């Protein structure tokens, strides 16, 4: 039956593609009666769910809506695949009168720029990208600041001196997080090592679980992740090792073992951007906010984290916020012993955003193809 086999595998693979494309769901935020409310659109890459990247953006949207009362009306579209579909969705939002549109995934960069050219009177804000235009601004958070703090917690709580890191794709943003975590961990525990497993997917609970189990089997007793589901926190809870969540507080998935979480907070930023746009003062910016701007916050601490550790984290956080301390202050050495930044200086944003090596303390070799 080889013919049948060939035919259906082909259909099967195309069906997967279609399945993802079809799962786009339209949703509308609460509309309050007001004369000519200001319309704001949001594009999300995944379902809102109750934790994770998109959930945090949607919480920011709701916060902004609340802060501005009936003066705005928001509309969001979730599960929009990056690519041709995104362009269609963004254009639709612009056509239906949204004056400011937030596109919240890296892959929306080119679709956003393309639609922005066709709608010069509409403003666009693209999260995590690097290209701007007269009506396209970019914004991102300094995730690495929270990662450094998470590393301090991990370094203080580990007994095996091995942390496990489940990561999605080896892009600078993720690598930066691994390195900041490792530096934070070794700042309080110089013997600490970090093992990394790449799952090559932002979202696959099964694989995230398998990666977490693997790291635990190799001696990691604190896990963290740069993937979107709660599977790593759950795997840690099941095997009674610690975890530090990312994006959102996931303590209900690991009530005994989730130590804390690195969370993203977009509400204040969205509120300000919308206010500016309503007042006609909006300008395309290049915003990279961190603890100082309130974009990065540590989630609640588990009661097993001793007070002195919590104090140390809070103190380091306020130092970072006040600009007194930078997680990447030289000397920065990579894990092959090469010095990447001389002693005494903080790393510049430009160098930081191109990070393509592991720092000392991370095991293995970064899978970057060059």
């Amino acid at each position: 039956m080889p013919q049948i086999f060939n035919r259906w595998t082909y259909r099967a693979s195309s069906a997967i593609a279609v399945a993802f494309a079809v799962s786009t769901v339209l949703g509308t935020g609460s509309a309050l009666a007001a004369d000519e409310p200001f319309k704001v659109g949001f594009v999300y890459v995944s379902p809102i769910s109750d934790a994770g990247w998109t959930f945090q953006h949607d919480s920011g949207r709701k916060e902004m809506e609340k802060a501005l009362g009936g003066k705005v009306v928001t509309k969001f579209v979730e599960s929009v695949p990056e690519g041709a579909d995104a362009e269609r969705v963004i254009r639709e939002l612009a056509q239906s009168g949204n004056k400011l549109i937030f596109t919240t995934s890296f892959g929306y960069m080119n679709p956003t720029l393309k639609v922005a050219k066709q709608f010069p009177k509409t403003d666009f804000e693209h999260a995590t990208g690097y290209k701007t235009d007269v009506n396209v601004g970019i914004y991102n958070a300094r995730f690495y600041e929270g990662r450094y703090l998470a590393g301090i917690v991990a370094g203080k709580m580990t007994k095996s001196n091995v942390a496990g890191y489940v990561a999605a794709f080896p892009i600078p943003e993720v690598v930066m997080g691994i390195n900041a975590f490792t530096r934070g961990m070794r700042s309080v525990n110089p013997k600490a090592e970090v093992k990394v497993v790449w799952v090559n997917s932002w979202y696959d609970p099964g694989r995230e679980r398998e990666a977490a189990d693997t790291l635990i089997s190799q001696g990691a007793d604190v896990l963290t992740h740069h993937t979107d589901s709660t599977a790593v926190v759950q795997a840690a809870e099941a095997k009674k090792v610690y975890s530090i969540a990312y994006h959102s507080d996931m303590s209900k998935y690991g009530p005994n073992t989730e130590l804390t979480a690195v969370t993203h907070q977009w509400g204040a930023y969205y509120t300000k951007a919308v206010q500016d746009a309503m007042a006609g003062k909006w300008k395309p910016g290049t915003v990279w906010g961190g603890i100082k701007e309130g974009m990065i916050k540590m989630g609640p601490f588990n009661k097993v984290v001793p007070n002195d550790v919590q104090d140390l984290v809070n103190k380091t956080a306020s130092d970072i916020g006040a600009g007194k301390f930078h997680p990447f202050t030289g000397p920065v050495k990579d894990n092959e012993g090469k010095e990447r930044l001389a002693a005494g200086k903080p790393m510049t944003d430009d160098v930081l955003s191109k990070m393509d090596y592991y720092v000392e303390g991370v095991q293995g070799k970064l899978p970057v193809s060059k």
Partner: protein
Amino acid sequence: MMEHVATLVALTLAAGTPLVLAGAGELVTERSGVLNLGVEGMMLVGAVVAFMVAATTKAPWLGIGAGMLAGAALSLVFGVLTLSLMANQVAAGLALSLFGVGLSAFVGLGYVSVVIEGVQPLAISGLSDLPFLGKLLFAHSPLVYVSLALVAAVQWFLFRTRAGLIVRAVGESPEAAHAIGYPVIAIRYAAVAFGGACAGLAGAYLAVAYTPLWTEGMTAGRGWIALALVVFATWKPWRVLAGAYLFGAVTLAQFQAQALGVAVPSQLLSMLPYLATILVLTLISRDAATIRLNAPAALGKPYHPDA
């Protein structure tokens, strides 16, 4: 070291189990001559229903039962379309998968934030905590044992019972089976429902035991892999088992290699399980005789006694 081996075996079994469950069910369906490509959709619907029932009743096993029923119910929709209304099986199966993806996302909307107590791994005092052997034999999720029993049962049923022989006869030549008086359509309905229940069980395992959570599309393509495994196994139950564990083992091996710091690109490593599948499929396909010998001759061909 031995402990580590036991851990690896346990992880492999846990990772391979959804593929074993869904694959064994689909194998029976295909043996009856029906190609149901809706496995992914049935798994998702099984997963969401199992999760919802487990969350509402706080009884995970009840959830698993409900997941199986939901999978079977969805497969019967496919049955009506293809067996009674003679729709094209490939098209109907694909539609079933797409429908299942959307339906599960829709009905599960209110459940994404719910936390449940999942099915716990076996813990027999005295046995489960034995060094090495305990971890190797007595500490898996109960569904791992269920999946092994299922494969044994399917093997025994298809090749050692009269009823199994009839199912295979229907898959080889529905005309002949009809001519000697067997209710071809009823038998195919049963086989389709069995496949659906197994896919539902596989989804339930994911949502209630392996990663106790519900989110849209959480099966992440495992239904399609289960479909490929059936061909990979040349329609033999034990080979489905071997293939599922091979797939699980290669996935885990690449994670282990990464965590050990082996300098191989992770992208290459994540390709390995799929590469292994393609390789084996290619090797099998070269031997056309084996395939012809094992593939149900009437697979995917619509049949109606009146037609």
